[in-house]
């Protein structure tokens, strides 16, 4: 009988290949469940989950909440903007207060890298990292790989390029770990200012020419330019960024093969990709969103099955 090797999902870094395989196989079953006329199963009816979002999020929060509700868990939501965090309460105090209300699992997004790991060492609950600063966003990477597997059959041996703002992206790091674990070849592509200095040490190819990168790849994962995290100017203007690193239909049509386009959302239409690309049949952006619910159900289900009754 198989189970996850971890008690928390803090990052892809802590998972092994078998864990990812188990999560995908479980997600297959949940994908079937969420396409039924009645999309709910009662497995987690005695589990309570707190969604703690110390940073803004729309789709991740909705996706987690939906996944929890589809599994019949009780859900409480918390966002930092309306809370005592503003009054100076520490993270551990905040979480322990919530846990004293008998919460079994915490889904947390936090602006500081490592917040999830820190919390897992200090509180007695299963922790799922829903994004910690520019560090990791494991469920996003899982759903990205799952979507590649769904579209192309398997992840192993595929060439995947991650384009754009790698420096500020937690999606990029988690994706690199997840793709490499499954045997894909990974390249990052973007302006030098938005590529971390030591990114090569992760064993990825580095390319600054978008056309070359797209000609090499089977899948391009287009990252959003995270203007809100940019305290200094990393490129001269948005227009120039788009000219160099934006994907449009003409560029896609000029390639030797038909590549798959992904985007973790939210899209800046006309910046990273144009509308006709985002809405084309080469883009699997909405599949990613649908798969996100199934993947999160799988992760929550598998972690919950390790919580002792």
């Amino acid at each position, binding site marked *: 009988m*198989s189970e996850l090797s971890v008690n928390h999902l803090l990052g892809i870094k802590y998972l092994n290949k078998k864990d990812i395989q188990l999560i995908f196989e479980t997600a297959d079953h949940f994908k079937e469940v969420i396409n039924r006329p*009645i999309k709910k199963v009662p*497995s987690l009816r005695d589990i309570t989950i707190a969604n703690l979002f110390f940073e803004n999020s729309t789709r991740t929060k909705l996706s987690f909440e939906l996944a929890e509700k589809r599994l019949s868990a009780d859900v409480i939501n918390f966002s930092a903007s309306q809370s005592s965090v503003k009054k100076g309460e520490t993270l551990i105090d905040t979480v322990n207060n919530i846990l004293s209300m008998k919460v079994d699992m915490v889904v947390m997004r936090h602006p500081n890298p490592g917040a999830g790991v820190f919390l897992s060492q200090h509180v007695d609950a299963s922790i799922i990292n829903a994004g910690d600063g520019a560090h990791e966003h494991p469920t996003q990477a899982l759903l990205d790989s799952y979507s590649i597997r769904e579209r192309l059959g398997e992840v192993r041996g595929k060439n995947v390029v991650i384009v754009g703002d790698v420096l500020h992206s937690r999606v990029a790091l988690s994706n690199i770990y997840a793709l490499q674990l499954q045997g894909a070849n990974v390249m990052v592509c973007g302006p030098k200012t938005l590529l971390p200095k030591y990114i090569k040490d992760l064993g990825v190819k580095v390319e600054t020419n978008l056309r070359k990168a797209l000609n090499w790849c089977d899948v391009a994962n287009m990252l959003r330019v995270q203007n809100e995290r940019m305290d200094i100017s990393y490129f001269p203007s948005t227009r120039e960024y788009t000219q160099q690193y934006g994907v449009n239909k003409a560029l896609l049509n000029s390639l030797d093969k038909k590549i798959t386009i992904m985007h973790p959302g939210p899209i800046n239409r006309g910046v990273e990709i144009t509308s006709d690309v985002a809405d084309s049949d080469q883009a699997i952006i909405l599949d990613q969103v649908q798969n996100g619910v199934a993947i999160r159900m799988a992760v929550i289900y598998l972690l919950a*099955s390790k919580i002792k*009754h």
Partner: protein
Amino acid sequence: MSQKVLLNAKEVNIILHRLACQLIENHNDFSNTVLIGLQPRGKYLANRLATMLKEDYKIKNIQLGHLDITFFRDDFRRGEKILEANTTEINFIVENKNIVFIDDVLYTGRSIRAALTAIQSFGRPNEIELLTLIDRRFSRHLPIQPNYRGRQVDAINEEKVKVNWAENEGEDSVYLINN
């Protein structure tokens, strides 16, 4: 470990034919009936009965599905065993249909309880019947009884009833295993 043969291939075959005939008696041409094999072990019996009804009894419209009950079980997180899911294949709506649940062994009745909940995700059926190859008497935890039974068996709790299928284990047989 000792084991005793409860049914051999010939006996299994006779029982399957009887069960198929009993189904025909109640469901005529199966126009409003669907057969649902319960995963994991009930699907072999369901497949076998569906094939028999089609080939030996010339019934054309057999609708067959497989239902996995893992996420509806009442022992999640309660045992050492991690529950592993199987595939559900129901490509039709069961609204107003007459359903026959098919499983190999009826023991505590808890799987059937889970299946009764799980099937509701696919609509509100008109009625649900239960067919099992082996009915273990005196071991029920819930008030659930089969409508069609192959063979009734008196087995104590330490004993295990194992149903083998030719397509899976190489032979049709039923064993009573004593650990």
